[in-house]
């Protein structure tokens, strides 16, 4: 079967088999080939079969569709043609189905990206700019800083309240512990809290802590107001302003 191969900076992003339906290309997510780039119009172009021939048609896009580097409105396609939309290339890979009896004679898939490559800073920035912008918009008040704290409700500890400043917060008898527990039978590492990109996670040490009365299994994400029990110590996890 014929197909279109979407490439960005030489790397294959997607392969789209060509059927009887037109294949649409654009920035809107409901396209067959969505390209998330501001240089691409919402409904930028389409590729379809007309009287047995493959055709590319520009849908009045702002920045145009280019066939082998020439701006086109409508053009017939042949095997190996390159369509340029924004910074993305779409290659035409035509296989004549009639002559292909079975899998054995199928054309080998497009070359895979075997060699490891690295994006440069600008490419990375471009790729993630939009996502970051969306994330920022969804935040209620970006300038409000909230400090994660543990407040001791019960048990023997060296302080009554702790601010979680580092990536690792150890709860236990150890000298390395942030929340230092006392008591003869308290383990040196009773539990630990790890800071991840999306929040704070409680994990076991030599004790299995409880969150809101339930023993944790794997790492458990802490929510504002959670009640943590480590042995006989009871802590309240709070985000303070």
């Amino acid at each position, binding site marked *: 079967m014929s197909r279109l191969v979407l490439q960005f900076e030489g790397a294959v992003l997607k392969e789209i088999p060509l059927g009887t339906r037109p294949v649409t290309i654009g920035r809107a997510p409901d396209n067959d080939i969505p390209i998330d780039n501001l240089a691409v119009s919402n409904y930028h172009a389409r590729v379809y079969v007309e009287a047995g021939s493959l055709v590319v048609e520009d849908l009045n896009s702002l920045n145009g569709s280019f066939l082998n580097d020439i701006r086109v409105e409508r053009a017939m396609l042949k095997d190996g043609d390159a369509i340029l939309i924004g910074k993305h290339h779409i290659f035409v890979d035509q296989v004549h189905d009639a002559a292909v009896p079975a899998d054995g004679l199928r054309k080998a898939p497009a070359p895979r990206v075997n*060699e490891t*490559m*690295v994006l440069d800073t600008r490419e990375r920035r471009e*790729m*993630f700019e939009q996502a970051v912008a969306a994330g920022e918009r969804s935040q209620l008040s970006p300038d409000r800083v909230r400090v994660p704290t543990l407040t001791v409700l019960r048990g023997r500890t060296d302080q009554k309240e702790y601010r979680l*400043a580092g990536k*690792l917060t150890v709860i236990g008898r*150890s000298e*390395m512990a942030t929340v230092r527990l006392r008591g003869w039978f308290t383990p040196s590492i009773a539990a630990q809290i790890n800071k991840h990109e999306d929040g704070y996670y409680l994990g076991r*040490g030599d004790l299995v802590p409880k969150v809101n009365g339930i023993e944790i299994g794997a790492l458990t994400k802490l929510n504002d107001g959670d009640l943590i029990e480590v042995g006989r110590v009871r802590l309240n996890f709070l985000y303070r302003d």
Partner: protein
Amino acid sequence: MRIEAGARTDLGRVRKNNEDCYQIVPALNLYVLSDGMGGEAHGEVASTLAVQTIMAHCEQAENSRATPTFGEPHPDVSERTNRLASAIHLANRKVFEMAGANPGHKGMGATIVAAWIEGQRLSLAHVGDSRAYLLRAGSLEQLTADHSLVAEKVRIGILTPQEADASELQSVLTRAVGTNENVEVDADEQMLLVGDSLLLCSDGLSRMVTDPEIASTLLTSTSAQNAADRLVDLANENGGVDNVSVIVLRILPKQESVLDRLKIWKRNSG
């Protein structure tokens, strides 16, 4: 606690040269693994230089407090973890300079995953898509976040993990050592517990072997070396399309008492 280490590297079934490199320094409890890239025998130049630079820098820092630091320190991790990150910044500089000085080495680079253990505290730093996993109480957790295009897209929610696994873009890294003048290093720390297993691996393992397979291999192995051997064998059985390297660490009690064994057994069965 004491650390039992095992390691293995293998060409895999497709590649003609091994661009991976690992090194273990028991005296420092320092373990570093790197996957080089650049083709035509330059990948291993990059990975070897990176690993050796990290080892030398950490050793020097152990012996002399006056050892300079490289890169911006992370305020939220310990001095030791920052030292490990500093070593990777220095490795980045050295690989980058070498790539710039020799036209034949242009474009070479490497991933790094490095673990440094002091007492019970594990310092972990990485760049690229080589990974660290922790097996604790029977469940496997990936401690590192890949610096690859597909992984970053999964993290911001524009790709599902399933789409990422099927993607042909898995080899596209967003960060590597030696490809830019500066590099951002991820650094993190953890407290290790008796009974834990830690795995450092190149993508030749993580792309070929599923997480459940990794977990069950670590759980059922007789030693760290046995686990390393079996993981590499599994990667090759599943296709072995890339070089594969693993370092396995098992955290054992100093002298195993009946109580310790009971604790580990209880944890793994509960």
